[in-house]
């Protein structure tokens, strides 16, 4: 019997209409855990770098995490993996909600789509019954609308639906996949779904998920439950409100947006409005949120209420979470009322709430500078809000200038001409980032921005405070019950970290400490993404209920895979390296690994070089960011090493004989027993 996972994938060939239930290899689970880990392996095995995002050979994988659907609180993530049209790299956007547990109950760990459907279809997975259904009548429908129509058509309000809107159908490079209160937004995975001719996937399952050691597992779950209660009752002192609690940032709850509106950038991520927030604005925005927000809501099996149903008079109801609350508002220099209204339309269209507003703000900036001309915007209204609606409508339909803008700021600027390049200034690896511009280089963040492959800072940061606390007593207070650290040395790093003077940024934390801190933070995200855990209860907030000390126990008791901290760290390193291997094979190199040039005002090129050099060494990568043959073999990734050598990405190892591929693989096999 398989525990935690179901042991089966559902493979669908859209071109030929083939449907297959395929048993998976438990050895692969032991090596790569599940979710992102096994997705990375599938992509490596089956999607060579010659495959382009919109070719039929590209896979679109919807994976539940290893522990999704078990009583582990907050373990509900669907990890969607494909080749991104925007970055041409591996995208692994994720969504919460209810979809992944339902897929597990239906009897599958992953849904793997390949090929392209000749007609627009939706897929209905009901336990062992899997159907293609005609979706011609859903063409052009919004994602929320589509969900309701499918549930009605199937006469099953419990069917969980992941759908694309018009943006996905028209292959907008930043199209999202929307599901219930969640969305998998980054990397344009909705465009790949649209390209494959799949409007939606509905799933309903009524099977069991088995637990290897029930009593131990429940004990662990109860400890998490109790710790969540403790953390909810004891917000962390000394950090801003939004960092004090668990969950993803409580944007649907909090009214005080002084920090975001005065520290994040407006427009095309350029303008900081230091004295924006005042009493009148607070009053008006509070009224807006109070009037539109019906209820705070959660994902599957999670007590945190990070989302909300939003009911704006005259508009269809939709669900919202996190920072989309302000991205449109700030890009358009408008107010919260506008931001929430346009978010409703954007959710139906299915676009990424970070990228879409930046693209529109860039277009208006280019128009203002005369790089784009008025005749390219025929009939566009004069007011900022009207212009955003006008642009959004054209982008998702790829009409006129919208066709260019539909490819994101990087590709749009390339198409418009070299004078447009400086306006696509907020990308890393061709992907738009948070609208944030700061003063002093933060060496930890420098490494995270540079080397992160999820391309979203929130998906690599967490655990370690973002900034030093002013007083030593506050730091001592903070580290007192900081048991989540992998080792006590992290406490010392933090204790000695001063806001200014000695031991302050950018030279403290030291290069070595930064490597250590970044590696820890990233590792926790990668573990979440394999298990299907929401980062909001784990890698993202300070002092979370899930950490490196209880995760191995969860895996042992839940999935029946003997695990300890070292083995888990090694597994996470294995599939983290495999994610990188996929991207290296697609051409990513050191030159791609840099934050936006204007992210910090005060830069330190020499220090930055030292940081990157040291971090690459720390990770077992060469000076170009490529995992070395030696480190690959140590992780049991000899097949990657072989392919790197045969493709000429790496040279043959000079000191042959010291370790052979066979040795390495037997070592890896031992390490996962």
């Amino acid at each position, binding site marked *: 019997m398989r525990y935690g996972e179901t042991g089966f994938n559902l493979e669908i060939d859209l071109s030929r209409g083939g449907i297959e239930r395929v048993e998976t290899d438990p050895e692969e689970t032991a090596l790569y855990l599940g979710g992102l880990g096994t997705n990375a392996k599938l992509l490596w095995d089956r999607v060579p770098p010659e495959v382009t995002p919109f070719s039929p050979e590209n896979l679109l994988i919807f994976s539940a995490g290893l522990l999704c659907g078990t*009583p582990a609180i907050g373990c509900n993530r669907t990890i969607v993996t494909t080749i991104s049209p925007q970055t041409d790299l591996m995208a692994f956007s994720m969504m919460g909600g209810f979809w992944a547990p339902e897929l597990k109950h239906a009897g599958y760990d992953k849904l793997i789509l390949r090929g392209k459907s000749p007609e627009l279809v939706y897929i209905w997975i009901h336990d062992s019954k899997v159907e293609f259904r005609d979706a011609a009548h859903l063409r052009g429908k919004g994602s929320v609308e589509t969900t309701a129509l499918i549930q009605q058509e199937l006469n099953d309000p419990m069917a969980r639906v992941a759908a694309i809107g018009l943006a996905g159908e028209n292959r907008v490079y930043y199209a999202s996949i929307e599901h219930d209160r969640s969305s998998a937004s980054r990397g344009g995975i909705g465009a790949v779904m649209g390209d494959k001719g799949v409007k939606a996937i509905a799933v309903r399952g009524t099977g*069991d998920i*088995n*637990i290897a050691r*029930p009593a131990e597992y429940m004990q662990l779950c109860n400890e998490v439950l109790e710790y969540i209660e403790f953390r909810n009752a004891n917000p962390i002192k000394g950090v801003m409100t939004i960092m004090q609690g668990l969950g993803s940032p409580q944007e649907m709850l909090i009214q005080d947006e002084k920090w975001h509106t005065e520290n994040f950038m407006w427009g095309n991520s350029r303008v900081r409005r230091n004295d924006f927030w005042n009493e009148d604005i607070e009053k008006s925005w509070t009224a807006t949120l109070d009037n539109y927000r019906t209820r705070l809501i959660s994902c599957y*099996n999670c007590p945190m*209420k990070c989302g909300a*149903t939003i009911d704006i008079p005259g508009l*269809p*109801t939709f669900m919202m979470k996190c920072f989309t609350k302000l991205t449109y508002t700030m890009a358009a220099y408008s107010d919260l009322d506008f931001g929430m209204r346009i978010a409703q339309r954007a959710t139906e269209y299915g676009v990424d709430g970070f990228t879409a507003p930046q693209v529109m703000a860039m277009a208006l900036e280019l128009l203002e500078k005369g790089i784009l001309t008025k005749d390219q915007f025929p009939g566009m209204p004069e007011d900022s809000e009207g212009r955003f609606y006008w642009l959004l409508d054209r982008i998702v339909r790829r009409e006129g200038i919208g066709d260019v803008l539909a490819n994101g700021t990087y590709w749009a600027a390339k198409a418009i001409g070299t004078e447009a390049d400086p306006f696509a200034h907020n990308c890393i690896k061709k992907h738009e980032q948070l609208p944030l511009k700061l003063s002093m280089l933060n060496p930890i963040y420098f490494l995270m921005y540079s080397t992160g492959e999820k391309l979203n800072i929130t998906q690599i940061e967490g655990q370690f405070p973002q900034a030093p606390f002013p007083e030593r007593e506050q730091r001592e207070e903070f580290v007192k019950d900081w048991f989540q650290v992998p080792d006590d040395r992290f406490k010392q790093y933090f204790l000695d970290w001063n806001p200014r003077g000695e031991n302050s940024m950018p030279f403290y934390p030291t290069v070595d400490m930064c490597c250590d801190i970044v590696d820890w933070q990233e590792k926790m995200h990668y573990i979440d993404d394999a298990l299907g855990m929401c980062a909001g209860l784990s890698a993202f907030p300070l002092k979370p209920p899930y950490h490196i000390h209880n995760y191995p126990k969860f895996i042992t008791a839940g999935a029946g895979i003997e695990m300890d901290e070292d083995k888990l760290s090694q597994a996470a390193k294995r599939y983290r390296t495999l994610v990188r291997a996929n991207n290296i094979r697609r051409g990513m190199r050191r030159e791609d690994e840099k934050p936006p040039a204007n992210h910090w005002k005060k830069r330190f090129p020499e220090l930055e070089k030292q940081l990157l050099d040291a971090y690459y060494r720390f990770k077992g990568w060469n000076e170009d960011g490529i995992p070395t043959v030696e480190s690959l073999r140590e992780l049991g990734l000899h097949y990657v090493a072989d392919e790197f050598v045969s493709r000429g990405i790496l040279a043959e190892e000079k000191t042959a004989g010291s370790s052979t591929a066979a040795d390495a693989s037997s070592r890896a096999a031992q390490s996962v027993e």
Partner: protein
Amino acid sequence: MPEKKKKIVTRIVKSIHVDVDKCNGCRACEVICSALHARPKKYSSNNPARSRIRVIRQPLDDIYVPVFAGEYVKGECYGRNKYTINGKVYNDCAFCRSPCPSRDDFMEPDSGLPLSCDMCESEPDLEKPLCVRWCLAEALIYEEREEAVPEKVEQGKLELGLEFLANEFGMDKLLDSVARMMQKDEKVNREGTGHLSTH
């Protein structure tokens, strides 16, 4: 009517107060209920389809209603309730807690046997039902109250029922019915079918 002296005893009445305004729709109650009642061993599996509570969740209509499985009823109901909530009519059995032959809710997916909430009495060590413990939104509130009741006398229940019928239809009609039933009874007994019909 002179009250007969009856011995008064106290009993504990357990109930779960559902505050639908606080439900966040997370379904943790379903997860943990199905885990606790898993077979062959508690917590050995989980599956909301086997849960004795389910959350009716229609987020776009702001409907979040946890419903506990009640007693099995053998037949389909005559009339079905309709609820209008925010302008939408719910005319199926959406909010009904009884497993019954006409629908799949609260039935074991494998055996088809009805499920009913036992307030986790199978786990005497639990302070309160597990769904309540896991509902940090506090939409499920466990309530225990002591009720002073006359010591249970078999006749008591019958008399209560008769009193209700007498109030509803009048004592004369009630007596008429009893008389008719007695005649029928005699007839049936004479014919020896052994089948008693009250219709």
